[in-house]
């Protein structure tokens, strides 16, 4: 019994190590952006506690559709203009990262809030980096999506059946 528990523990530890190894490779670019912001603006990134656990849960829930979920927040970024965001991201990420959505509000006369979504297609999966700068606050979200797995999860009839049931119960 004790041996079996030990074995299960080892398997779990091994799985976690495998997941975390995969994450570290995928998150290299994300961490590079975070450290660039930290150095340039002498700011400290606030990481969400238990994010790795949340990421594993998201991966399990979506059957591998969403992986390597990372969220980092910067408060009171002094000296940063929204317009600095895109060049900063481009300088830290390679050419394989492509701009998907760029949104600038406030413009030249405003405070230059900016949202940028960059994607990195890699075979059947796609890395996504979301950066949102708003009034001195910068949120960075990174994730990796597997199109086939996510599509399967989205179009899963059982999941849709459950969500429609929940919708009915809320409506009632």
């Amino acid at each position, binding site marked *: 019994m004790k041996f079996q528990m030990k074995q299960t523990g080892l398997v779990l530890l091994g799985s976690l190590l495998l997941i975390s190894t995969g994450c570290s490779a995928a998150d290299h670019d994300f961490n590079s952006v975070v450290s660039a912001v930290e150095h340039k603006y002498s700011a400290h990134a606030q990481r969400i506690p238990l994010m790795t656990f949340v990421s594993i849960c998201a991966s399990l829930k979506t059957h591998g559709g969403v992986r390597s979920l990372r969220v980092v927040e910067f408060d009171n970024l002094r000296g940063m203009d929204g317009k600095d965001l895109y060049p900063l991201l481009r300088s830290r990420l390679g050419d394989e990262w*492509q*701009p*998907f959505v*760029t949104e600038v509000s406030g413009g*030249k*006369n*405003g405070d230059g809030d900016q949202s940028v979504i960059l994607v990195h*297609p890699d075979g059947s999966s796609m890395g996504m980096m979301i950066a949102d700068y708003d009034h001195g606050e910068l949120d960075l979200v990174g994730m990796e999506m597997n199109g086939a797995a*996510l599509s399967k999860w989205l179009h899963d009839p059982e999941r849709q059946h459950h969500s429609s049931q929940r919708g009915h119960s809320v409506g009632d």
Partner: protein
Amino acid sequence: MTRFQRMTSACRTGILLGCGLLLTLPVVAQDTQPNFPVELDKKLAARASDVNEVTMNKTMLKFASQFLDGKDKDDAQAQRLIQNLNAIYVRSYEFSQPGQYTPEDLKTIRQQFLGPDWNPMVKVRSKKGEGDTDVYIKMVGNEVKGMFVLDAEPKELDMVYISGSIRPEDLNELSGNFGVPKLNLQKSSGKESK
């Protein structure tokens, strides 16, 4: 022919074939990864108060199409449509006041679509200066290989460039999806269409 001569000949053929393939690569890449054709976009972005840019190349379109439900009639139609597209570019500029872009700017944009392949298809002009709309199509042979929509309002300028095989009626399918704004080409009140 000696063995050495045969080997030399084979090497030469291989090198020539390789060079030929390398030369064709940029052409293929250019065809599948076109750039946004309007050169004025950076200047307009600098003047605008709000800017929205959406860029979807073939890889991203292919990835996005996976989320459409093939069993749904509309989604299946959209999937078929996306398969023939190379890229979708959306550029939307909002200005704090009218006059931030000039008629010359519009002229410059329109002139970029007066090449041998491009043909103006829709031209809507407002009498009161409320907004003008232009739709250009790129014809290669008998096939439509691209489409450009320019919608100019006093405080807003929208441009949509779709590269790939598309029929004008397919615009309705894309309108409101994949970052393409809701296009209303039928707005005729107070406007004259040519």
